[in-house]
């Protein structure tokens, strides 16, 4: 280096620190860009320019840092996730947009809360017509939620029409079948309808661009965060309800009806909207929780499955095939898929495989083995069972999750051996998302007539 390198180094250092402050540009990227800057400068100095001149030209060629930062953010949108929602207000300054949004959210939350009370006007009481409310629960709250996203993302009119049609179809299929009282197919319909409608909300969330994989992943992140926010709000709501009852009890007035008929159902509906808004607006306040939980629980579940298999092998006690056993294993698979998914959503895709990835693969493989054991046990006795709607639904779900996990394990193994990039796993999980909804649609639409509404 020449004698004037010292002030020049200072300038490069400043430039580097300036870059480092951008959230979308990580330390390795800064290093890469700095290498480029130095190469360029070396070339220019060789051509006869002074160090300072070379620095200025190299900086200029590098381009506008704001534009560059935007490009990085575009490519690594997961890095920006933490600061979304704060930026528009800061730029806007007036806070008018925020106030409008608060108003919209408030109105939609009230709309959802009112929606669940509307059927009462037609004589359908919460206690007495539980089946009706179970079937329609998602229809009270998810349309307002979709409206919120349609408004926020500025959806095209045609997309809105399609979303509206989807909700209308769902309403028809939820209510048109003559279910027998306490029928299994009715419960299945109530359980599966939200899965379909959540996909519809997803289309609104991604602004109609369902095929942009990155946006879809954002929707998955959103779903995880919403769940956590919802649980938090529900805890608060529980405390609120308990205090309400206690206070009125103190003056000898029974307030049970207030809690059971109003606070809990209306609160449960409104909380979905408010929770979604919080996730949208306050993403940066709380760090993404879902990935943290996966980090915590992946090792625990891996150990649990290992212990379970070891106990089975040691004691030789086979899986006792009872009514709920299939559902229990379905839940296990759902959990494992969730753990894989949220670990993937938070992962820096450019990092090489590490110990945690190995652990994830182990978890998936263990889950596959345990589930295979359960399926074997069930298959051995399927003739005694006969085919009830519950069993067919549980078996179908088991199969869908099994396929997902088997392929995930394969992709994961390839990734660990360096044969494929991590993005493949993510793409597989994202591409698989609609399968769940299609199956749910199948259950809602075809199961009741096929099984005679029992």
């Amino acid at each position: 280096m020449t004698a004037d390198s010292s002030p020049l180094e200072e300038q490069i250092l400043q430039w580097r620190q300036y870059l480092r402050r951008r959230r979308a540009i990580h330390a390795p990227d800064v290093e890469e860009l700095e290498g480029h800057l130095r190469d360029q400068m070396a070339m220019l100095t060789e051509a006869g320019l002074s160090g300072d001149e070379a620095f200025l030209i190299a900086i200029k060629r590098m381009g506008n840092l704001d534009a560059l930062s935007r490009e990085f953010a575009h490519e690594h949108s997961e890095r920006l996730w933490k600061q979304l929602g704060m930026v528009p207000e800061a730029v806007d300054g007036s806070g008018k947009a925020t106030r409008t949004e608060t108003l919209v959210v408030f109105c939609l939350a009230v709309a959802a809360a009112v929606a669940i009370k509307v059927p009462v006007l037609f004589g359908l009481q919460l206690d007495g017509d539980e089946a009706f409310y179970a079937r329609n629960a998602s229809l009270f709250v998810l349309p307002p939620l979709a409206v919120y996203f349609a408004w926020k993302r500025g959806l095209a009119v045609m997309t809105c029409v399609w979303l509206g049609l989807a909700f209308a179809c769902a309403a028809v299929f939820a209510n048109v079948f003559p279910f027998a009282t306490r029928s299994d197919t009715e419960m299945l319909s109530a359980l599966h309808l939200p899965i379909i409608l959540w996909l519809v909300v997803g289309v609104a969330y991604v602004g109609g661009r369902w095929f942009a994989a990155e946006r879809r992943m954002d929707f998955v992140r959103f779903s995880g965060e919403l769940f956590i926010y919802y649980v938090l709000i529900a805890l608060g709501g529980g405390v609120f309800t308990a205090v309400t009852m206690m206070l009125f009890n103190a003056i000898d007035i029974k307030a049970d009806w207030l809690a059971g008929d109003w606070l809990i159902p209306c609160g449960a509906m409104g909380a979905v909207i408010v929770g979604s808004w919080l996730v949208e607006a306050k993403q940066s306040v709380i760090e993404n929780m879902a990935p943290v939980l996966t980090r915590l629980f992946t090792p625990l579940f891996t150990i649990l499955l290992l212990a379970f298999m070891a106990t089975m092998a040691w004691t030789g006690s086979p899986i006792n095939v009872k009514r709920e056993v299939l559902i229990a294993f379905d839940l296990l698979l759902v959990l494992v898929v969730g753990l894989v998914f949220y670990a993937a959503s938070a992962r820096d895709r450019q990092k090489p495989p590490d110990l945690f990835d190995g652990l994830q693969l182990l978890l998936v493989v263990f889950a596959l083995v345990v589930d295979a054991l359960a399926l074997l046990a069930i298959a051995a006795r399927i003739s005694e069972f006969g085919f009830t709607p519950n069993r067919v639904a549980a078996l179908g779900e088991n199969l869908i999750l099994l396929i997902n996990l088997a392929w995930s394990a394969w992709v994961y193994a390839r990734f660990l051996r360096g044969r494929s990039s991590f993005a493949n796993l993510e793409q597989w999980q994202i591409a698989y998302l609609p399968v769940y909804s299609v199956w749910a649609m199948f259950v809602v639409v075809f199961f009741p007539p096929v099984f005679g509404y029992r």
Partner: protein
Amino acid sequence: MELGKDLVAASATPLVLAILAEGDSYGYAIIKRVTDLSGGHLQWTDGMLYPVLHRLERQGLVAAKWGTSESGRKRKYYRITKGGRTQLAFQREQWQVVDSTLRGIWMMKAYPT
């Protein structure tokens, strides 16, 4: 000549892949190769190459590895993958279709240049 933003974006992938197909390379050398190949007509804003490279890496079309430069600094080297070569062949076909179509229409009428 200043190319439109969209055209630059669209041509970046095949160009980078084609250059990497000649041999492993790194950011600065790729930019330089583009400038040389185009006779200086195609000037990229240097920084913009890196998001493109990172996207290709995410898509599995190229693989990256940290190495050291001649001067001993850390440097990120890029290598085209098998998938990248397939993609390159695919894009090449597409560009040839566009190219031949445009040629056809340029020939039919004498456009003022």
